[in-house]
């Protein structure tokens, strides 16, 4: 299988050979940043288009068909529309915070995005507490949403922001617990290592029952983290018109929109890295020729395939269920997901200690 470390090392050596070390590092940082942002935008575009088409298919519609063949240019048309929209200054809003909020949200999701292991060696941030870092970075996106609601000087936004505060902080716990369950199973927190171990079998198979329970909890809590139905209360359009981003127009709204989609991508990406083996191909012990054949498929295809499968799963959920009420959202978290998650962590620990894993 192609190891991207060879490419990155080659670039690194080349840069060091033509310029002094600090400059080389700086150039590398710039290249990486540009690549990451480019990838971020490309995935956002793909996902917005996918959402439109998948949602349409679930609703027995065709979705966009006019702009470009099969509506393929629809997202670009949308972005163009957003760019030419007037940016409205809200009277008596807190201008600094109001303008800062969308960037906070995007920044948080961009940093988390950098932790995703796209293929062997193709990962921007990878260190020994990677899992903790992801959780920490993704949780400050909530700050942006709270600030957006607070600074908009709009009562609907305020209610939306308060809802999202209560909801996202609660569900962070479940996400953390289910990830911890996997950390117990893998014995490491470094994402690249976690994926490396899974070349010998994906965790969802190796950890069997507790891993599957953790996966389900993770999907539910992840859905809540991204504010998507049935947990889309912060922006429940039939209650709060648009919730925390009611007062944003043009690209301010566009950034929230992109960040929401990318958060979904990140949730799906982490799910695929931790539970479904990331870039690790399908491995069935005993079928060596089959495993070798699977290895010919590049890791990035594996990773994206799994991620988009999880995204499709999330969309399926989103386009099936009605919205929950705020108290029910919290009941689900504190009375169901957290206790089950804790119990599950215990079961997993016992399994690992007793060697009951596959």
């Amino acid at each position, binding site marked *: 299988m192609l190891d991207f470390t060879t490419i990155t090392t080659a670039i690194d050596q080349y840069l060091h050979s033509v310029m002094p070390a600090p400059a080389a590092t700086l150039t590398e940082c710039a290249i990486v940043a540009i690549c990451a942002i480019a990838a971020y935008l490309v995935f956002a575009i793909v996902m917005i288009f996918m959402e439109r088409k998948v949602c349409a298919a679930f609703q*027995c519609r065709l979705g966009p068909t006019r702009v470009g063949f099969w509506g393929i240019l629809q997202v670009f048309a949308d972005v163009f529309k957003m760019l030419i929209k007037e940016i409205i200054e809200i009277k008596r809003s807190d201008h600094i915070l109001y303008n800062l909020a969308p960037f906070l949200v995007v920044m948080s999701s961009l940093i988390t995005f950098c932790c995703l292991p796209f293929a062997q060696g193709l990962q921007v941030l990878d260190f020994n507490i990677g899992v903790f870092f992801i959780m920490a970075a993704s949780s400050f996106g909530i700050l942006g949403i709270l600030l957006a609601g607070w600074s908009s000087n709009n009562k609907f936004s305020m*209610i939306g922001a308060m809802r999202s505060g209560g909801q996202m902080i609660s569900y962070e716990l479940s996400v953390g617990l289910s990830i911890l369950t996997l950390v117990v199973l893998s014995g490491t927190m470094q994402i690249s290592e976690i994926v490396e171990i899974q070349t010998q079998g994906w965790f969802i198979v190796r950890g069997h029952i507790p891993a599957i329970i953790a996966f389900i909890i993770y999907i539910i809590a992840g859905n809540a983290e991204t504010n998507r139905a049935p947990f889309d209360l912060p922006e429940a359009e039939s209650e709060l018109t648009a919730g925390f981003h009611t007062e944003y127009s043009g690209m301010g709204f566009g950034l929230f929109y992109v960040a929401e989609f990318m958060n979904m991508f990140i949730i799906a990406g982490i799910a695929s890295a931790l539970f479904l083996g990331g870039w690790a191909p399908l491995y069935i012990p005993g079928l060596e020729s089959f495993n070798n054949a699977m290895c010919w498929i590049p890791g990035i295809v594996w990773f994206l395939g799994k991620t988009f499968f999880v995204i499709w799963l999330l969309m399926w959920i989103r386009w099936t269920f009605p*919205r929950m009420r705020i108290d029910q959202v919290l009941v689900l978290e504190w009375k169901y997901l957290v206790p089950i998650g804790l119990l599950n962590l215990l079961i997993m620990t016992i399994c690992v200690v007793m060697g009951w894993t596959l």
Partner: protein
Amino acid sequence: MEITFIEIKEFRQTMLVKRGEGFDFLREMVGMDWEKEGLGAIYILENSITREGVELAVRTTDREKPQIPTVSDIWYIAELYEREVFDFYGIEFTGHPDMRRLYLRNDWVGYPLRKDYDPSEAINPVRLESETKEEVHREYEIEEDRHLAEMVEKLKILHYDQYVINIGPQHPATHGVLRFRLALEGEEVRKVDIHCGYIHRGIEKLCESRTYPQTLAFTDRLDYLSAHQNRHALCMCIEKAMGLEVTDRVQYIRTIMDELQRIDSHLLMFSCLAMDMGAITSFIYGFREREKVLDIMEEVTGGRLIQNYNIIGGVQADITPGFASKVKEYCNDQKKRLKEYYDVFVNNVIFRNRAIGVGVLTLEDAISFGATGGTGRASGWACDVRKRHPYALYDKVEFKEILHTGGDSYCRLLVRLEEIVESIGIIEQLIDNIPEGDYKTKTKPIIKLPEGRFYAAVEGSRGEFGVFIESHGDKMPYRLKFRPMGVPLIAAAQKIMKGCKIADLITIGASLDYVIPDIDR
């Protein structure tokens, strides 16, 4: 219709006695301007158990400061009806807790439905500045003689230190231009103040200067989801007054179209409830089937929303040759689709949690508010006009009156979905037996009704839709009043929304299934 006039001094006492006799349902309250005989109101009461009716009226000759004692404490719905009469006739109801205009702006000059109202634009120009907030209740205290009263200003409607938000007039969940002013405490609703009138078109006033055939076109524009039934009611009322009998074929066609319309409306109710609760996919599923009903109706009537089908003495055009087979095909398909709705939405645990026990309307309240239709039946009140006062062919077909006892949002949806099945049953009983005959009876080109007062009611898609006509022998009605289906619903909403969460407010609103053009006539 025989009306008993009551002396103003004995009015309250008589009304209390009537209430004691079991007349617990105020079917209709019509404000009237009898010119020389004075201003007043007609009350049509009904006993919800024996279904016996009584019509009473009260009037006062004082045109400067007309006052009538309130009955809003006897029948809850009178609170809004009296505000409407105050709005249009300027009659002040002594003892009413909240005497504000219901539809028009606070700064409106004059009372538009009075016969001597001056509609000139100099008096009421198009005002471009926003309405001044009227935060004060006006209340008239009843004194010893139950007539003369002094106005006192009472508590503010909403306090300035409350967290007040406006749901509407432009809001995705109000299904039109209705405005709720909410006082919130966190997520909880403390007080609801409803503002109507954003699309009031003065249809009742317009009707007074239109000939009877011309008034027909307005009914399709009241509750556009009961277009057939509304028009059926008006045609029935006029035919009753004229003493005109329509042919059997017409009765069959009208009944079938009424039921198709009911299916259409109930499907829309299901869909919109789903959408308000965030299940957009269910919304589209509902609309997918509704489209087929509309196609069938368009084939026959030429309209999808504005049907324009019933006319005095018959229907506009005969049914098309392929009608029966199309309807049967649709009915079979719909029955299968209903299961899908239950699977994807109704039985869904998230929806059940959000709807069961939310917005409970008790049986007593439902009757007192006059909340007929699916809402009343969800509370256990057998209020179906088709059973109470059968018209057209409803005494000949077999169908069940769906009753639930929960009174919550979930029951209100179930009633609608089960009524779709009943409606399909009615259609299937009739569709193969449509007798031959004329599809309309010839009428004179100029229709004049004999002097008198006439009331006819049908079961609209969301309750009893009534038409009251007072004729003075002209070719135009002296007074034409539509009994709205929606006003009782929003009156009930005001009560049951108190104490719920914002999200519940949306659920309750959608499950009550009001249509704004019907409230704002």
